[in-house]
């Protein structure tokens, strides 16, 4: 350990003397922070909180794959390991020294990222320093496992670059590091559960955005620790001092066992079933300020169509009906529309064509949603819908789901093509009408009314206020 530390400290000293290494170790991650925080989060401090996890993960991944992994191969290719081989040092010391150097170089980079995020983007640091240190340590160890395993099985730099790129790009785009997971198709989210980068990103976001404790994410941390242990074992067992020493095809195949822990944990995580909803929650809370306020706001939320999973669910929960039941020929459908209103990802589109029955003059199409009234119904003033339309008249109603449906307060409105808010007062929920109770299911009904013709209404969000 003493020898490994000495070599690691020397490696750090040498990095400090190499401009290109300094650039990629310190400046490059900061550039990424500015891109994420500036372009993706638009400088919104609360959105930067969401982006901070992906930036840190990107940095940790980069140092694992391109720093530690490639450095190990480069040392061997260059022949600089041979001199160490003559000294009383074993493979374990060399692997450990690389791991230590990578970790010790990573810590100031993370500190620099925290500093820049807080100073330039006023990001509130919603994570304890000890928790941050644990996450960074576990993450660095986990991705060191990848870098070391690839360095162990690659015979040349070119080969290592190919392996690195395949794994790196997969992790980069499918684990929430670059594209938030809730924006990806559901099957990709399922796949993401097999990728360790997902765990680091989602744990950062769950802690920093949702305010969850680290202990709730012990399983994700375990995956990364297991990855690190496997990587160390491979690196130690397959360590080669000389570039002339080639790894056998059998050993390469054997190294595929590296993915077993990810297959097991990915399957288990998918079976647990709460992963995607956690990602969606983090994403939906992005930029909303502290998590307590967000939770309170969330309790009043009826629909925001923000996560694909939630949106699909909500499509199932919405019911569409038309005047076809009473002799008309109107048609209507609902679908998801990306993007939604300002700053949101998607909205619900309710569209169709009104063709009333002969002689009736007006047709109709209705979209209904069963709604649970929040427990603090006495404090509610009404329902607010963020929507846009086509200049046709629409009506919104809110009534009990059961036979007491005769009580139907309604509001009519004519939405134009810009996003706007429409409110329906429901202050009477404090004293519901006879036969109804706030704790019973209620129905929100939105109807297209008027003369024959096409209609289209986009709804971005519905909430109690």
């Amino acid at each position: 350990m003493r020898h490994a530390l000495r070599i690691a400290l020397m490696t750090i000293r040498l990095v400090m003397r190499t401009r290109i290494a300094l650039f990629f170790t310190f400046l490059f991650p900061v550039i990424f922070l500015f891109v994420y925080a500036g372009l993706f989060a638009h400088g919104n401090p609360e959105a930067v909180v969401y982006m901070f996890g992906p930036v840190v993960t990107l940095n940790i991944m980069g140092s694992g794959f391109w720093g530690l992994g490639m450095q190990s191969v480069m040392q061997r290719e260059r022949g600089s390991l041979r001199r160490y081989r003559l000294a009383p040092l074993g493979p374990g010391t060399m692997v450990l020294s690389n791991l230590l150097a990578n970790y010790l170089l990573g810590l100031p980079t993370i500190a620099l990222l925290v500093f820049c995020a807080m100073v330039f983007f006023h990001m509130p640091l919603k994570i304890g320093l000890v928790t941050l240190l644990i996450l960074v340590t576990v993450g660095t160890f986990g991705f060191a496992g990848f870098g070391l395993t690839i360095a162990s099985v690659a015979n040349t730099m070119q080969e290592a670059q190919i392996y690195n790129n395949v794994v790196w790009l997969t992790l980069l785009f499918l684990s929430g590091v670059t594209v938030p997971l809730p924006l990806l198709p559901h099957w990709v989210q399922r796949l993401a559960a097999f990728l360790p980068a997902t765990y680091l990103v989602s744990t950062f976001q769950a802690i920093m955005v949702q305010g969850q404790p680290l202990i709730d994410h012990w399983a994700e941390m375990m995956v990364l620790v297991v990855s690190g242990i496997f990587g160390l074992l491979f690196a130690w067992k397959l360590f080669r001092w000389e570039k002339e020493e080639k790894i056998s095809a059998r050993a390469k195949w054997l190294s595929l066992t590296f993915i077993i822990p990810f297959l097991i944990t990915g399957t288990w995580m998918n079976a647990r079933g709460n992963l995607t909803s956690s990602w969606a929650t983090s994403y939906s809370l992005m930029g909303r300020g502290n998590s307590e306020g967000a939770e309170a706001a969330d309790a009043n939320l009826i629909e925001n169509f923000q996560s694909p999973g939630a949106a699909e669910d909500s499509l199932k929960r919405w019911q569409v009906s038309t005047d076809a039941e009473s002799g008309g020929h109107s048609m209507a459908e609902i679908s998801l529309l990306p993007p939604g209103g300002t700053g949101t990802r998607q909205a619900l589109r309710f569209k169709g064509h009104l063709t009333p029955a002969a002689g009736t003059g007006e047709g109709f199409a209705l979209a209904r949603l069963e709604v649970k009234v929040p427990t603090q119904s006495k404090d509610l003033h009404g329902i607010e819908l963020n929507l846009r339309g086509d200049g046709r008249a629409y009506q919104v109603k809110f009534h009990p789901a059961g036979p007491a449906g005769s009580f139907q307060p309604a509001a009519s409105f004519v939405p134009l093509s810009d996003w706007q808010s429409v409110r329906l007062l429901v202050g009477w929920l404090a004293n519901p009408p006879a036969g109804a109770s706030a704790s019973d299911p209620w129905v929100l009904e939105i109807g297209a009314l008027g003369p024959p013709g096409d209609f289209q209404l986009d709804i971005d969000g519905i909430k109690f206020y």
Partner: protein
Amino acid sequence: MSTDADNSALVRVENLHKRYGQVEALRGITFDIGKGEVFGLLGPNGAGKTTTIEILEGLRQPDEGQVTVCGLDPNREQAALKQRIGAQLQATVLPDKIRVEEALGLFASFYERTASIEMLLDRFGLAEKRRALYEHLSGGQKQRLALALALVNDPELVLLDEPTVGLDAMLRRDIYALIEQFRSDGRTVLLTTHYIEEAERLCDRVAIIDRGRLIALGTPRELIERSGKGTRLEVRVSKPVPIEHLSKLEAVLDCHEADGTYFLHAQPPARAIAALVHLLEAEGSALLDLHIAQPSLEDVFVEVTGRRLEE
């Protein structure tokens, strides 16, 4: 092969075999090295010198044979052995940005016993370059640093693999002086080389290897005397003379011609020169140039292999 160094042998090698795929790099090499001896492995490239030295360092495993270094098995007792030996590789590569004194300090820190860094810097002429980065050192300075690194643990046995390869004649002489100091320190040295001058000047005993076989072993003088090649005469003349006439001259052992120069081995040389002068007069030719050289290990090598070392 038994030698007078048997009783205090620091290195024992017996019937060493090593194969790389279809290539048989070592085919039963046997020798030993006594304490305080400077021992040379002389042979052309690919002869098996580096393989031998790497087996002694514990870097490679022999396929067959027995090896003992400092009383230890290089494969089973590697850690203990590395504490006691110092080695210099054929090509030492250090990180570009490491300073000379840092490299010495770092490698010294790996050993239980260490030499003084200041002493090494002075001795290897690196004191002025102590703060220089490795990438800024000249070829000779890099080689001196590599030699200094071999001494950071104050070793009993120093293994040097082609210590002067790629250096010009002046730098080579610098390195010779340093290796001679190793001898005066009382250290045991094993060096591989394909330079005749190096082996003759530095080594107490030389083993000549070719194609994985040890073909001659002894002190340089013994080997030369044993070869019976006689003094070498290099002759240039004004008009070509039939080579068979030269071969038949008195005291000439053999003769060949290359690029207009005749190479004769003669014993005793004085009689051969006198006979040569008479022949040239008779043939209407004249002596333009005559070099007289004592036989060398090169001659020994040519005698036993039929090839020159550089071939």
